[in-house]
């Protein structure tokens, strides 16, 4: 057993606070407002892989060794994702959101926390099939440059595309999924025609500002990594970024219910977590 395993939880909490503070002051990355249980666990995981003997022992390394810091941040950013994740959500988007998107001559979509890109290609496919792709601009953002680089490339493990094909069909896909990628050896490259309207860029929901006049914001399975304060910050950002009547889609286990902005939205579909921005009624 490592020495940290037996120590008092209060001491560990101090070490973790100091580590996160050091990261914030040195690099500007604010993990102090991440969901605590998960971030603590990831720090412990990193510790056992780092060769350091204690969490406080990592602090000087984090401050002076940028490479060490980058490795740590890689542990913090969980980028688990898949194509057409929660297929029924895409069905609901087709049924309840697309008809209204069709009433706008140009549509702007922000996909915040796009990770390695599977979700943004899924959305691009949906827009194509609904005849909306040509008038759309999709801003796909993440704070992880590494994840963004994968997303831009759009090359995935061919084995994973079996699940994707199944999801695509469940999501109400209208064609054959194989039309959307080129398979070579064991890799699948997403079709170039899906990329034209996607703008990838780096954006940190803990620090950066508004993306204006969005008609639809997808931010799925990102807010669960934040504590309530940071969730409220991000949600206020989304509320300020959406046009009146714009849509917000969260992860299937994320809800506006316990947040500051719940009074600004109507529920479009409770299960799919799709909300429509209205007038913010004082609660």
């Amino acid at each position: 057993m490592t020495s940290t395993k037996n120590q008092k939880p209060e001491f560990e909490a101090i070490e973790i606070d100091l580590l996160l503070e050091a990261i914030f002051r040195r690099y500007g990355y604010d993990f102090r407002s991440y969901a605590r249980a998960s971030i603590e666990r990831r720090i412990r995981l990193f510790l056992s892989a780092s060769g350091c003997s204690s969490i406080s022992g990592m602090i000087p390394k984090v401050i002076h060794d940028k490479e060490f810091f980058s490795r740590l941040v890689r542990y913090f950013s969980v980028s688990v994702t898949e194509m057409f994740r929660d297929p029924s959500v895409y069905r609901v988007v087709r049924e309840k959101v697309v008809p209204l998107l069709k009433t706008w001559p140009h549509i702007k979509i922000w996909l915040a926390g796009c990770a390695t890109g599977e979700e943004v290609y899924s959305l691009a496919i949906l827009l194509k099939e609904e005849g909306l792709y040509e008038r759309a601009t999709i801003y796909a953002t993440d704070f992880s440059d590494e994840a963004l680089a994968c997303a831009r490339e759009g090359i995935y493990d061919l084995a994973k595309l079996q699940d994707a094909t199944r999801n695509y069909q469940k999501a109400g896909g209208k064609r054959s999924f194989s039309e959307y990628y080129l398979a070579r050896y064991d890799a699948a490259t997403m079709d170039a025609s899906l990329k034209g309207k996607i703008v990838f860029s780096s954006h940190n929901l803990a620090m950066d500002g508004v993306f204006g006049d969005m008609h639809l914001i997808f931010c799925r399975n990102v807010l669960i990594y934040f504590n309530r304060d940071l969730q409220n910050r991000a949600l206020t950002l989304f509320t300020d970024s959406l046009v009146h009547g714009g849509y917000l889609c969260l992860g299937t286990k994320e809800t506006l219910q316990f947040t500051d902005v719940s009074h600004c939205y109507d529920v479009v579909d409770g299960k799919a977590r799709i909300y429509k921005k209205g007038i913010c009624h004082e609660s």
Partner: protein
Amino acid sequence: MRAREIGKLPSSANYEAVVIGASAGGFKAVAAIFDAVPLEFALPVLLVQHLHHDDDGAFAAHLAAVSKLPVIEPCDKEPIVGGHMYIAPAGYHMLVEQNGIIALSTEEKVNWSRPSIDMLFESAARMWGERVTALILSGASSDGTAGIQAIRAAGGLTIAQKPDTAEHPFMPQTAIDSGAVDEVLTIEEIIARITGLRPAIPRRERKK
């Protein structure tokens, strides 16, 4: 792991929560427990049952049908309330945060599982320390053993389903072999044991 000193057996202790881990073959055992927990039960119950990836709340709905208490498949940041039964949704780890709310996570699988019993138990050990009771039921996985050890190290009460009464004995047996299990009981005995736990805090008004 040291044996607990006689006289310091946790039977006299007060509890704030019950956490349960179950896997293959655990469904009947879990349903029996949910069926038997009485309406006056004051503690929150948090359950990780390994589910099929596609389960869309059907498992929770089934338990809700047998349980007298509210059964919730929680959202992220859901407050934990006494007398409520929380079930980890398929595909998400369920953790307990220090301020008494539930955190969900899609971090990578642990022990090939998401939700993982270890993740729930380890966070529960940090949150409640000696004031939590952990049950490990039927399963063919070794998930839960590290969690049971964490609960035990924090002073909580650890119980395993008697392996020869479990549909799949491997999971409770693995926990027992780690030396961190206080009591090995049948489902009937488990029900009697947990319904007899003394709550550390008076039960909060239940929300309608």
